[in-house]
């Protein structure tokens, strides 16, 4: 019943969005090649699906996304677990992190393209950067916030490194780390598109640039919708994984 209700909400919400779009289409004075109707965008979507172009680009983008995101999460979590246990070292690293963190990953783009050229690497690097800081900082904070009683118990029961990290520190910090990982997913997905618009000749981001160059606003808007849809699906998938893991963490609320 709850599911059905939330499905109803989704349908109404999307219907309103399409309605507004349609109204804007009616009142706009732009050429319809520049400002297409929902129907035209939908037709473009079908066209891309039939030609196989869409799935080709989704595949390319997803590969880059997975490579950048997962490598970033792994490196950031490992680094965070180490630095979280070494607050004296982290106080020298933190200022540098704070300096680098507010820089938009896209600002690195020209530099990355200069170093690596056009292709998969710039998009992967930009996703890596986008996901890295939120995961690193949430991991360091999570390790610092571990209830000292877990460490006392571990000491008493003779749990030494590396077991201490795997058996106690990582699981104790996990709920908060998961928060950072989740946050980073959205950020990383946003910057995938930016990365592909500048540093690639394929993928969903490039498809937007390509559509603009060919003045195919219908394809452009259809692609944007696909990007949004995949973003929702990724978020939903991560939520499910998170829930499953947290359930085995005994946090059965």
């Amino acid at each position, binding site marked *: 019943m709850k599911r059905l209700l939330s499905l109803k909400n989704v349908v109404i919400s999307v219907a309103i969005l399409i309605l507004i779009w349609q109204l804007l289409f009616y009142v706009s004075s732009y050429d319809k090649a520049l400002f297409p109707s929902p129907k035209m965008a939908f037709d473009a979507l079908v066209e891309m699906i039939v030609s196989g172009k869409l799935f080709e680009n989704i595949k390319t983008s997803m590969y880059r996304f997975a490579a950048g995101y997962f490598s970033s999460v792994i490196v950031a979590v490992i680094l965070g677990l180490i630095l979280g246990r070494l607050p004296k070292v982290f106080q020298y690293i933190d200022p540098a992190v704070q300096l680098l963190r507010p820089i938009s990953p896209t600002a690195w783009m020209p530099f990355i393209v200069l170093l690596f050229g056009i292709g998969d690497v710039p998009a992967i690097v930009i996703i890596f950067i986008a996901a890295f800081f939120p995961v690193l900082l949430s991991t360091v904070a999570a390790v610092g916030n571990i209830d000292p009683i877990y460490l*006392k*118990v571990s000491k008493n*029961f*003779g749990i030494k490194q590396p077991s201490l990290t795997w058996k*106690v520190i990582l699981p*104790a910090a996990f709920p908060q780390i998961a928060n950072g990982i989740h946050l980073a997913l959205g950020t990383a997905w946003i910057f995938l598109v930016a990365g592909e618009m500048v540093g690639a000749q394929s993928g969903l981001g490039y498809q937007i640039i390509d559509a603009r160059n060919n003045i195919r606003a219908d394809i452009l808007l259809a692609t944007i919708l696909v990007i949004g849809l995949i973003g929702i699906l990724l978020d939903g998938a991560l939520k499910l994984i998170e829930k499953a893991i947290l359930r*085995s963490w005994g*946090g059965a609320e």
Partner: protein
Amino acid sequence: MYIEVKDACKDFVQDGKRFTALDHVSLDIEKGEFICLLGPSGCGKSTLLNALAGFEKVSSGTVRIGGKEVTEPSLSNITIFQKYGLLPWRTVLKNVELGLESKRVPKEKRAEISKKYLELVGLSGYEKRYPKQLSGGQQQRVAIARGLAVDPDIIFMDEPFGALDAITRMKLQEDILRISREEKKTIIFVTHDIEEAVFLADRIVVMMADPGRIKSIVKVPLGAHRDRTSDDFLYVRDKIFELFNMKTEGFIEYYI
């Protein structure tokens, strides 16, 4: 002597103010004794326990167990905390197995030992539950089973029943008394509850605050089966009450 504390001092600096948690404390404990450290907050009873358990070092003086200076916590002296300290991502059984993993006990043996001690604390059938699904009293029972599973010589208990309701607390007191007799462990138990101390202890170490020190050590001449309403019990309890009242008199004399 089995456990030997000699001239132990411990100072803290809190908000720029020096604070003496232990002031020349000396105490001897024999193997198999049930000792309660009793006193108001700030009397250094937890500090003394932490020093014995190896979590904190004393500023001066010595703390020895079995002739050896205590420098760090060890698997042969397990501490039970007020907050239980169970790992919430592990099932009850896995929690009890924790110390056995460090002892490199094989897997089947671990489960066997753990189940035995879960039965001892009355939690058979709870193996697959998670700590959050248990009541506070049950969680503390799991922590006790986890401590017993590694077969320690000494069990330190730091106000272990302080967070429990009165009835659960009494039930657990009875159980820990029974377990201490059956398992023949040396138990050092910190509490600020006079009745709890009289019910459990062979000897009560009465401590006072400012500076933290031992006021007196009271032998509890009650047998294995203790009745909270018996005359003997009430007599010992009153004696302890008196000890605490004497502190005020001492103060008055000091000021006169």
